[in-house]
């Protein structure tokens, strides 16, 4: 499953930590927007759980969007940036 995760976290420390953690699950595409391919239910629960421990439940939000293959196929962008990475291999 492909997930788009974005957050609004007011505390600097918590925001930094959330970003670092999300890097283990996917790619940072904008300041607080991450794309996570190869997710499944248990990984999503794990991620949610970890984030919930970090954030301030009163002030902050994290949003998770599941995107299907068709949705990813019609992706478009302006300015710089790459296509969402959906290939299951990568060459550097």
């Amino acid at each position, binding site marked *: 499953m492909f997930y788009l995760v974005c957050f609004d976290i007011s505390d600097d420390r918590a925001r930094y930590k959330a970003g*670092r*953690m999300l*890097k*283990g*699950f*996917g*790619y*940072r595409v904008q300041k607080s927007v991450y794309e*996570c*391919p*190869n*997710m499944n239910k248990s*990984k999503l629960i794990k991620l949610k759980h970890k984030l919930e421990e970090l954030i301030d439940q009163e002030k902050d939000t994290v949003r998770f969007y599941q995107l299907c293959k068709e949705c990813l196929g019609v992706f478009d962008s302006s300015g710089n940036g790459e296509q969402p*990475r959906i*290939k*299951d*291999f*990568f*060459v*550097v």
Partner: protein
Amino acid sequence: MQRTYVLEYGTYLRKVSDSLELRKKDKVLCQIPLNGLKQLTLVGGVSLSSPVMDLLARNRIETIILGRNWDFKARFMVDEHKHVARRMAQYYKMGNPDFALRAARVLVRSKLENASSFLSIRGRNYQDEELHAAGAKISSLAEALESRKSIEQVRAVEGQASKVYFAMFPRLLRNKSFSFNGRNRRPPLDPVNAMLSYVYTMLIMETLTMITAAGLDPYLGSLHALERGRPSLACDLVEEWRTFLGDRMVLGLINRRQLKKSDFTIRSANQPGKYQKEDRSLPVEMKKHATRKLIDRYEKWMATRAICPVTSEETDYRGLMRRRIWKFCRWIEGRERSFEPGLWFVEK
């Protein structure tokens, strides 16, 4: 990202919480999340820190270290302790000369039959009688295998067939800028041989991973004799895939003109001072962008959808290989009575 290949020279991997960061001279080249990472292939000089090694081991990420020209250097192996019974069965069965001979025969037989049908099909498409004749010759060699009473004889038949097969290879090339004068390796001397070597390496790595995952010992085979450090079983099991997966892919890249001669750096042995065996330069090197193209093609190729001719399930080429290895595994364990040669070319 299930598989990541790092080709960039002089880079190092760092651990950043649950992801890996690839750096070159203090510049971050890319970030690799650990989520979903299954295989990491490091080609030529990538350094790692010990926390990274710890992470790779803990997450059981198959890590393969290849040299500059894709020569196999090392592989991180996580201690597999749970398949003792299966391994014992393998040692017991493969130690039995009769059983080992049967295994070698089946594997060579499927290699030859696949090569033969490939040549016949191409012969028909190109209306080339010689290809057809070579196909028939290889097929008759395959028939003769049953009467061979020792592994040495089986190997001899394989050698004969391989000679016939590679003699036909120039006829399969439909691109004037590439030529082929027999198979050579260590090091490969021309672009076609170099590409074949690349693809065979990838296929062997793939098989090795699957064998380890199945719980067998990749170092004990039958067709390939026991040799220190050689994954004989992986070499054995890859034999039947060489034509179907390796050669067809390489021919496709050449014949569809996806690679040009200028994608290779060629140092000819005939020009003195350019290529010497003693120094470390290679006679043929693939340029970096071309290697990327090759990997790209390979990954797409292995994800090609196919119907398994035996079970009629839909899968991809990797799935076909995996099924074959499972079958072999069941045969070793005695859960399956027979292990027939696999014929992967389905007549249209």
